[in-house]
């Protein structure tokens, strides 16, 4: 488009200029800056401290960057720090956590997605009652069920084992994940499901060939929720496993809270960052899908 008025009008033109330092902007960015510092500062201190040697830490400048960068604390946190009697660092706990998280996540997502699909699409008799009970389960405090589950696991001989903990995580993930999947599947057009039925696809045919391929965002959301939830879990880990199968969070606690010897702040900081690294990576890698999936699942209840 040609702007014909610019030839005749010689005054200032273009969009109205905005002041960079208006009161509104100062207030807005000032607030954002304070909040950012509030969140970023602890992380900064952790990283900085983990790279210092103990003599430097004792000098007391916790905000100062390391004079001499050392990765010794990280190595020690990973493979040498003492947790109770054993002194092999976080590595054992890490691999335990991996062996707990992967099966729990896969199992709970498979079961919950089929649950949600059946509840959303196949409206079987008593579906609403079943769903209500399941949702109600999400509101019962974990503490109430701790001891009954100890007894149940003991009776079936899984108490203290990784398998037992995997089962517990799978069960406790059910209410929220089923809700998530049910809402997502309900938001998909019902006519697609009808069309697939007319086309002769059965329960599993529709699930695998119509529903699952359309549900990548919600599977991602479920995966993130479960990976972070299970990885960060401490309570179930400490209750249902033994010392040789403690997850990483419990190992971390044992390192940080050990009452013997000097407090090695640099090792503690490194160990904490190492433990938080998995959920952090998951967020960074799939954050975009996560937001999209949360929004998609939330539309229809």
């Amino acid at each position, binding site marked *: 488009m040609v702007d014909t008025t610019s030839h005749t009008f010689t005054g200032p033109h273009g969009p109205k200029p905005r002041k960079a330092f208006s009161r509104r902007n100062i207030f807005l960015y000032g607030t954002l800056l304070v909040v950012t510092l509030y969140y970023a500062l602890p992380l900064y201190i952790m990283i900085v401290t983990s790279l210092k040697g103990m003599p430097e830490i004792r000098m007391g400048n916790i905000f100062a960057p390391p004079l001499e960068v050392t990765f010794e604390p990280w190595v020690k946190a990973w493979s040498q720090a003492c947790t109770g009697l054993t002194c092999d660092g976080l590595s054992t706990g890490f691999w335990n956590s991996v062996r707990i998280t992967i099966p729990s996540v896969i199992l709970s997502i498979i079961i919950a997605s089929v649950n949600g699909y059946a509840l959303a699409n196949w409206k079987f008799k008593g579906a609403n009652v079943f769903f209500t009970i399941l949702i109600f389960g999400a509101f019962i405090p974990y503490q109430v069920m701790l001891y009954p589950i100890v007894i149940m696991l003991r009776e079936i001989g899984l108490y203290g084992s990784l398998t037992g903990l995997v089962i517990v995580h799978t069960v406790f993930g059910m209410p929220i994940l089923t809700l998530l999947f049910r809402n997502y599947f309900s938001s998909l057009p019902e006519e697609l499901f*009808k*069309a*697939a*039925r*007319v*086309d*002769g*696809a059965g329960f599993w*045919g529709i699930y695998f060939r119509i529903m699952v391929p*359309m549900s990548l965002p919600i599977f991602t959301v479920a995966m993130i929720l479960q990976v972070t939830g299970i990885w960060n879990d401490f309570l179930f880990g400490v209750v249902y496993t033994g010392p040789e199968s403690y997850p990483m969070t419990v190992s971390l606690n044992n390192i940080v809270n050990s009452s013997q010897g000097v407090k090695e702040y640099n090792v503690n900081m490194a160990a904490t960052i190492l433990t938080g690294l998995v959920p952090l990576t998951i967020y960074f890698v799939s954050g975009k899908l996560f937001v999209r999936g949360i929004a998609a699942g939330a539309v229809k209840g």
Partner: protein
Amino acid sequence: MTNSVEIKNLDLQFGAIKVLQDLNLEIGKGEFLVLLGSSGCGKSTLLNCIAGLLDVSGGQIHINGTNVTWAEPSERGIGMVFQSYALYPQMTVEGNLSFGLKNAKLPKSQIESRIKRAAEVLQIEPLLKRKPAALSGGQRQRVAIGRALVRDVDVFLFDEPLSNLDAKLRADLRVEIKRLHHSLQNTMIYVTHDQIEAMTLADRIAIMRGGQIMQLGSPDEIYGRPVNKYVADFIGSPSMNFLEGKINEGAFHVGDLVIPLERYAFAGGGPVNGDTTIGIRPEHVVTGELVGNAPFQVDVEISLIEPTGSDTLVDCKVAGKHFRVRMDGQSRVSVGEKLRIGINPAMASLFDLKSELRL
């Protein structure tokens, strides 16, 4: 057995709500039946029952002489086209067309030949490798029809297939569906709330209301001899004019006006006396030099004019009641002008005031 679909005493309840009540319907082989009604009348529900997507509460459904009341949708010999197209988004057009055939475990060569034929009929061959997201609304609905077509079934079910399309495309595809019906000679059951679609497509129309069929008949019958005031009001655009009055000595009295009824074909044979509503379609009112022939004539004052191009709709008052007249689009009339209009009672409809049934 000449009936393609038979519905016997069909009942459907959701909790305490009766959606369909004791519904009976017989649809002949190769017939194009349109289920017409406003939203919530049960027309889509009935179609879903025929398709087997809803479990009925009572009654039976027979397709081609087999009782399919409790059969799976895929075992009923039906194909269905949905309003929202309902194409599988992750599959190509070809994948969409072949999905049902693969489920039926048809040999590969047969699947290919059927897709080829359907694609030819619907002119979607160049689109076969595309995903639904890359198609326009009209193309999507063509593919959806194709998905029913490849199943090679006797009965096609259409659930408001054109409602999501814009007006021009709707008219095009309507013609195409009619042509398809001519060439395939399948039984087609078509749900719509659009009376133009119903009138143009149907062999017979079933007007539904409150889960029941009000009238079942050819478009001519439905338009010309509506069985009650509801059907009369529902069919026709602009809608019918209604005047309430009395029949006395073979004439209809409203205010000071007397409309002679000698030429009206009463349903019972002879004239009936009593409180009555007369219904006159705006297009059946004559003006200009034709007025002289009409058995009933009256002078009116024009209160509003709505030109539509082809026609001009004129609002006026007859016996103090709002009345519409359809005139030729070329008519030069203006508001406030006097107009002489003529009515032929043979083209009118009379309804009992209380029961609203046709007299």
